[in-house]
């Protein structure tokens, strides 16, 4: 019998817009 692989863990990801916001705020913080 075929052994079924264990389920993979879903990695939560921010949306593209949220990533954009994060990058913008990082850029603003750094001089």
């Amino acid at each position, binding site marked *: 019998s075929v052994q079924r*692989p264990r*389920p*993979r*863990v*879903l*990695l*939560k*990801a*921010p*949306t*593209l817009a949220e*990533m*954009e916001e994060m*990058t913008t705020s990082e850029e603003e913080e750094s001089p």
Partner: protein
Amino acid sequence: RQVTVQRKEKDFQGMLEYHKEDEALLIRNLVTDLKPQMLSGTVPCLPAYILYMCVRYADNTNDDLKVHSLLTSTINGIKKVLKKHNDDFEMTSFWLSNTCRLLHCLKQYSGDEGFMTQNTAKQNEHCLKNFDLTEYRQVLSDLSIQIYQQLIKIAEGLLQPMIVSAMLENESIQGLSGVKPMGYRKRSSSMADGDNSYCLEAIIRQMNCFHTVMCDQGLDPEIILQVFKQLFYMITAVTLNNLLLRKDVCSWSTGMQLRYNISQLEEWLRGRNLHQSGAAQTMEPLIQAAQLLQLKKKTREDAEAICSLCTSLSTQQIVKILNLYTPLNEFEERVTVSFIRTIQAQLQDRNDPQQLLLDSKHMFPVLFPFNPSSLTMDSIHIPACLSLEFLNEV
């Protein structure tokens, strides 16, 4: 194009080990500072395969923070490059190819059986083991749409200045210049003066350039088809809108030249194997406008012929062209008011859109069909010019 794919030693499992502190250097050398020309002669979409092999390493070591960090840095790196090169067709096409390829890899090696039907046994060994990256796939898909839109914007910006003069003003059919409409024989529009004058050959040259770049970079063929459908729509919209607003080009001779130009574009699509893109169909209103200029416009039978032919033009557009139509010489009559009324009466039951002009900014929705690669990760060679010596093959 030569492809550098070398069979690596058997124990290479298609993963690339890297240290967290090298992530920034990896993104710099492989994404933000990379020039597509450096990779000529290598396998298309090499950065995407390298990035996948790094993701796989992080997955294999069950390090979710490392996977998250690498994918976030990659996406931000790509966005940074695109922002910096927002008028560079080659760079934008390059990152569209690579973003789509990375997305395909995350599907092909996800472990989801639906994406594994074409995998070899070896490829199945290269699937992710610990993490489900479905949400990151969505982000990459959204990013691909953004890059596609940037690519279209750049291509349209390059084509736009050529369209009116190449499609409507330039006369490549010999002898046509003598049959310009009365009063317009010596007129040339401001767009056709001096350096702003283009012939159809310029449009075809530019499209050849787009096509070659996208093919060389390994952009998915289905995306290339959608790019040309979009560009042909834009050419049609700009040309038809000008025709609908300019009396001097509403003539039999322009109709003849326009039909010839369209047939050249159709021929180009066939020559590049792009005829199944739907691009030719987007030109249908323009083809009909060219025919309308050439048809007789006098009798009831002529009106019936026009109505049955011009199915892709609205009543408003047909009437406008007939009103603008300019006789070639003193022997040709203007279109009579009663003829136009006959046309309007015949078309009154049509449920036409109200606006006269086409929306030249309209974008067809883009689709990125799954396109698995037959390449196996362990066959990929990293060229020294990428300065990625800190990656270890595992």
